């Protein structure tokens, strides 16, 4: 029976691939990545330097995969990774990194630090060094189907409520529909206007779609905590329901990491191609607009700006579609000073939002977003990720800022022709 440390080290060893090798071999420790990280710029604590957060993996790589490292460790000249190291790095990796990958964009030698952090998390998770909030969310996701503990009954109750409040019939378990729309628990419980909005839009555009009562959750706590085993289990549930319902395209809702998980990482986690296409709701709405199926009328005249969710923009490549949609209905849309692939994170990505321990730090690093908004003097902030939306609302409230946060989908739905 191996110890937690041995499991962690073994997992870290298994994470070393060509990219890891090239990244650690080319890093000159220049410190440029720190200047792109909101956890560093807002705290000036050098421990939040992005490349420093990857230290457990670097240490294992050096000692296990380099000649000099092997020699040093066999002569006792370098210290092996310890449980204390993992314990110390747990807060850096899970509290002090939202995996926004802004650091990746500025590295002079091209190190994808977010990729390395994801691998560090695999080692942390294998050794059991995961924040309680994330562990519990993961347990609930596996047991009930969602990290908030929301079951299918909760979804069906929300569907019923939509009918009662808005007279809208949400299609449930419709076999052969064009699209299967996944939802984050936030959208079922907190931002139910998303459900109302997509129903109105799809009805107007003549799109057939469905939600699944068997498995509806878009978020993936396995990805957030860095446990590919759990991530794969949750993904298999999606594959199962999509296959059963004969779905060709799955819609990733307004949720950042759900999009990168479904669209980009999911197939690699499962080790095979997914049996369906994946589109983000922004991509679909923009395509419907281009096809002439989504027509809008009137305009939203408030001064507003768009917050790029990191996983959708910088990590997902959905950059122009939200802007094209906004330009259709919002004449007073202005860009933040740093936007698109160089946006600043809301602070709650990468599972930070599910980690209550990180709340004070998360609210502290929100200062950068506050400065961005103060520069623009906007009354409305629009985004396309419900997790960002929640983090933005909390940050705005903490800073007593009078800015309303809304999702693009509902903004479009409010202006349907």
């Amino acid at each position: 029976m191996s110890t937690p440390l041995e499991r962690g080290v073994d997992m870290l060893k298994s994470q070393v691939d060509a990219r890891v090798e090239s990244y650690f071999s080319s890093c000159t420790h220049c410190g440029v990545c720190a200047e792109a990280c909101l956890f560093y710029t807002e705290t000036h604590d050098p421990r939040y330097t992005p490349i420093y957060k990857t230290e457990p993996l670097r240490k294992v790589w050096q000692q296990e995969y380099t000649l000099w490292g092997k020699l040093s460790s066999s002569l006792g000249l370098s210290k092996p990774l310890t449980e204390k190291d993992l314990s110390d790095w747990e807060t850096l990796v899970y509290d002090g990194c939202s995996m926004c990958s802004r650091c990746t964009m500025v590295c002079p030698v091209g190190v994808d630090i977010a990729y390395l952090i994801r691998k560090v998390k695999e080692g942390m998770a294998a050794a059991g060094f995961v924040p309680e909030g994330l562990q519990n969310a993961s347990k609930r996701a596996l047991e009930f189907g969602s990290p908030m503990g929301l079951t299918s009954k909760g979804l069906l109750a929300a569907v019923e409520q939509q009918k009662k409040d808005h007279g809208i019939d949400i299609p449930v378990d419709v076999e052969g529909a064009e699209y299967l729309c996944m939802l984050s628990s936030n959208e079922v419980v907190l931002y139910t206007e998303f459900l109302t909005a997509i129903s109105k839009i799809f009805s107007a555009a003549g799109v057939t779609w469905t939600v699944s009562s068997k498995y509806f959750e878009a978020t993936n706590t396995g990805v957030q905590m860095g446990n590919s085993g759990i991530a794969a289990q949750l993904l298999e549930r999606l594959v199962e329901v999509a296959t059963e319902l004969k779905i060709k395209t799955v819609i990733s809702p307004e949720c950042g990491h759900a999009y990168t998980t479904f669209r980009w990482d999911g197939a690699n986690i499962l080790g095979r191609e997914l049996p369906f296409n994946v589109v983000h709701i922004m991509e679909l709405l923009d395509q419907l607009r281009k096809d002439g199926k989504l027509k809008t009328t009137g305009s939203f005249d408030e001064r507003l700006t768009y917050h790029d969710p990191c996983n959708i923009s910088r990590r997902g490549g959905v950059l122009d579609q939200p802007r094209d949609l906004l330009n259709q209905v919002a004449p007073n849309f202005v860009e933040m000073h740093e936007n698109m692939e160089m946006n600043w994170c809301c602070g709650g990505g990468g599972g930070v939002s599910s980690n209550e321990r990180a709340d004070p730090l998360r609210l502290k690093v929100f200062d950068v977003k506050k400065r961005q908004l103060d520069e623009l003097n906007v009354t409305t902030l629009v985004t396309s990720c419900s997790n960002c939306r929640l983090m933005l609302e909390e940050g705005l409230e903490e800073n007593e800022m009078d800015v309303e946060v809304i999702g693009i989908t509902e903004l479009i739905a409010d202006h349907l022709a």
Partner: protein
Amino acid sequence: MFEQFVNGIFWDIALIVFFVGVIGRLATLFLRSKRIDYSEPRNSGISGAIMANIHGFYPRKEISSRVRIQVIAGYMFHLGFFILLFFAAPHVKFIAEHITGFSYMTIPYWAFIVSAQIAFAGLILLWVHRVLNPVTRLISKRSDHVSSILVFVVMLTGCMALAEASSELRALHRFSVELLMIYFPFSALMHAFMFVPSRAFTGAFLGRRGVKV
């Protein structure tokens, strides 16, 4: 005796260690390249890899004002060093005699002095920044410091051997170069080769997702 050692067996050892080490390190990338990306690409990964290698040569405007020292000192050192390495008259002569078999343009003496001063200033500035800045001080490894010192010694002995006034000084310079060559494959100096695949991996990864690198 020392000159004979430096110009003979030690040079051969340094050359073998350098080439075998560098090629071996690069070969491990191919050996560990086992991942297939099963996701359907949006754009070309190859163009992303190429663009990342080009764009990596200048800082993004969003952070350029915050990293001026690293960028300016970095360029000073690298440009000065490469001009010296490839265009200083004694180096061109050495390359013609031992590698290419033909000679090419050399820089005049004044350009050698200017390049050396720029390279020294850049290297010293980078090292001072590494030691004084809280971020770089925390993240720097022993290898970063050893590499800086070795390169400094190579440049210093090179200047001392200038004009080939003394064969002992020239041997000292060559000895320091050989030490650097032996250390190179096992150190942070490998970034001189590894930055290309590193940028390419990330560029391809983001490029196929449709993100401009």
